């Protein structure tokens, strides 16, 4: 009896034990499934994160594209948690920050077309919500954040774990999926372009705006030009091929890669003698202080303001007949259409048009173009590319035309004028 009782007690104890074991097994098996917050979450597909920059710590855009599988449930919030790993405990990548993040625009395909707001209160989590969303997601989804700070560690991958929620407070998940991106070492590409200035002055037989006076400065030569024997019946304008003239113009060619352009000027060389030292004169002559005197051995300089010259009215001047484009190869250069970079000063542009000056040889009456010459030795700007849209200059050549006429009292003799030409580039 006692044994039977003990046996019943043992059987009862065994039942309790078996049931307990079974219960433990059941609880152990089902608990993870029942308690896992992602147990019912489905896989988001087509997940893609496009960051605006892969530079560490850059503040940039994060654009997510994906497709949620659950299209029958309204999404009221979304979170993209930045993590150092794709799975497991999420650790925010060093340097990643959502401070100052805004929505680049309202998301598309996620629900309502408007009403979504960003939430930056959770470290390492890009969040948006729309508690009043009443539209189920459809098609592909696009969500873009601006002002996201990249992780700071170079050559590091990081993962954005995306979760959609059916409530507006990121509590009840619907779907989830992870995408990845990387910030990489900064790669700097460097190159240098050396400063270039090729400037030369010489003489040329070219007397138009299109014929090349030489491919570049290496082909420019000559240190003088001769406008022949002056006569009161005309104004000799270079090139002069009669009365001893050498049929040449002056030329000044420039090439520079100065980003801010270049300015070309001249200053008349002060010759020996007295007064009017920089004009067309007989070297060593004693001229009058007043340039209006017509009996000394100095031909009156036209001055700093251009003007025409009348035959027999003593004057000496210079103008830029044209900006010659014949040697330009790096860009379209056409003087007649105004397509050139070296702009003439208004006192040395003849008549202000882009027509090559028609004055040439012995010009009777009054010249067609204006001329100027400053005999003081002070630098006078004659051209500049600083105001051009494209300030660099590729072998543009100024055709320098010189003009002179004597008065009936101008003494005979050998007259000469000299000038320094200077180019000043600004890089």
């Amino acid at each position: 009896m006692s044994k039977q009782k003990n046996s019943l007690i043992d059987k009862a104890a065994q039942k309790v034990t078996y049931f307990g074991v079974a219960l433990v097994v059941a609880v152990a098996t089902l608990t993870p499934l029942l308690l896992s917050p992602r147990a019912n979450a489905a896989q988001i597909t087509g997940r893609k994160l496009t960051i605006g920059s892969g530079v560490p710590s850059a503040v940039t855009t994060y654009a997510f594209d994906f497709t949620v599988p659950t299209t029958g449930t309204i999404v009221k919030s979304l979170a993209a948690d930045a993590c150092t790993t794709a799975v497991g405990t999420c650790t925010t990548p060093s340097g990643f920050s959502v401070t100052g993040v805004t929505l680049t625009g309202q998301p598309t395909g996620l629900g309502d077309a408007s009403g979504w707001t960003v939430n930056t209160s959770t470290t390492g989590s890009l969040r948006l919500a729309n508690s009043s969303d009443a539209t189920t997601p459809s098609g592909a989804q696009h969500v873009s954040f601006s002002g996201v700070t990249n992780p700071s560690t170079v050559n590091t991958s990081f993962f954005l774990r995306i979760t959609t929620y059916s409530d507006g407070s990121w509590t009840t998940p619907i779907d989830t999926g992870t995408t990845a991106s990387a910030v990489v070492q900064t790669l700097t590409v460097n190159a240098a372009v050396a400063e270039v200035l090729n400037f030369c002055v010489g003489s040329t037989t070219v007397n138009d705006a299109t014929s090349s006076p030489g491919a570049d400065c290496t082909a420019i030569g000559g240190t003088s030009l001769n406008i022949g024997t002056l006569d009161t019946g005309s104004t000799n304008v270079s090139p002069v091929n009669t009365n001893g003239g050498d049929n040449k113009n002056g030329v000044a060619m420039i090439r520079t890669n100065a980003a801010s352009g270049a300015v070309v000027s001249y200053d008349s060389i002060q010759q020996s003698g007295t007064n009017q030292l920089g004009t067309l004169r007989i070297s060593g002559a004693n001229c009058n202080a007043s340039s209006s005197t017509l009996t000394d051995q100095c031909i009156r300089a036209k001055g700093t303001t251009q003007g025409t010259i009348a035959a027999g009215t003593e004057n000496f001047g210079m103008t830029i007949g044209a900006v010659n484009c014949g040697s330009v190869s790096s860009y379209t250069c056409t003087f007649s259409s105004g397509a050139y970079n070296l702009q003439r000063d208004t006192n040395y542009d003849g008549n202000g048009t882009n027509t090559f000056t028609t004055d040439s040889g012995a010009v009777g009456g009054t010249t067609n173009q204006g001329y100027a010459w400053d005999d003081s030795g002070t630098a006078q700007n004659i051209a500049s590319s600083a105001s051009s849209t494209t300030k660099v200059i590729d072998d543009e050549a100024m055709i320098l035309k010189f003009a002179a006429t004597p008065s009936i009292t101008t003494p005979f003799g050998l007259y000469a004028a000299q000038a320094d030409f200077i180019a000043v580039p600004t890089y």
Partner: protein
Amino acid sequence: VKRAILCLVFILIFSLLATTDAFAQYVSPSYKAEETFFGSGGELDASSTGYKAQSSSGALGVDQVSGPINFIQGNQNFDVGPTTTVTAAFSSNVTTGDLLVVAVGGSNNATFSITDTQGNTYIKAKDVYNPSIGFTGYTSAIYYTVAKSSSADTVQAYNAASSGFMRLLIHEYSGANALDATSSNTGNSSTVDSGSAATNFAHELVFGWLASDNGVTSAGSGFTLRETAGSESTMDKEVTSKGSYNVTAPTSSSNWIGAMATFFESNGGAYSGFLTPNEPFLEMTVNTSSVNLGVLDSTAAKTGTATFNVRAYTSSGYTVASVSAPPKTSTGITLTPMSSQGASTVGTEQFGINLRANTSPTTFGADPTQQPDSTFAGGYAATGYDTANQYKYNQGDVIAQTVTGGWGLTTYTISYIGNISSITRAGSYSMTHDLVVVATY
């Protein structure tokens, strides 16, 4: 005891039912490892188990799907030139996921690029040049892509190197989507021979593109003639065992040129391999901190290189975009980028890059290298940046990418060139080369 056992059995059955979805995923033939990685918490262990099971079965490398490979349609066009472009349209809509194989040929030492109206990205499988053909030589190339949509498609070939005559032959196949082996050959005889290459999978498409001075208008033994443009032809055959294959065809004795590419069907998943991790993965590393092209010269091009690696494990591949503005000075003057693909031209202001091994303006750079080989890693130079000695730079362009999936490790070498004109503005030019990788999972 019986009750306890019944209770346990019931609970265990219930537990198994509760995990059936996860379990099914790693025994299903259509299983893709990456799809389970971010499922529910219970699925993570399941995917891990499934991954190991695939490895232990010996299914190393890219998985091959062994369905039939069918020729769907083809077309051709040719232009006696001189021309730099030729187009050909598929007469019917192509189907999403189908393999599009393009054979292109042209006079001179041509550098081709292929585009189509669907916007597919074409990858060069093989090209070959025979300077003895015709008066100017002849270049043949095979390109391929996978159709991104089911719609009409017109293909255009462009020859960036020179103007001459061009041939374009287009083909659509189902049942193949990835490149395996390639070969090319030139010669002078009565048999055109593409040269041999060994395939890595049992079931493949062997595609040949053959030309000669006296024409190739019939296929060799075992091959089916597909398209003939002018007097040059494509042909193919389906093979069912691994081996060494070549494509041959008869011709009247003359100079000839041949190229072959073999294709197989990949399901886009990598199940093993020591470079493939057991989780979604993306890693990009730039190995170079600076590239100095030095003082640029209007009489000689300056060059430099940098390398970066992309190691990925994605279902739909990745792209690498160059998002930086071209080099500029502190005052904002930009070194003119090469907006379209072209050769280095001394004396012309140019900034360009490619991802190829180059021989002009000097020998520098390197082709992308896939590790351990191209069956594991699928990274290539993107269109516009994929031709040796041709350079380009457009801010935002994709410069590297995968085609049918993204896995494994690919090392890319960026080749930079800089040229200036006689009036390129003086100064120090600099660019922080910002590379952005975008993977789709």
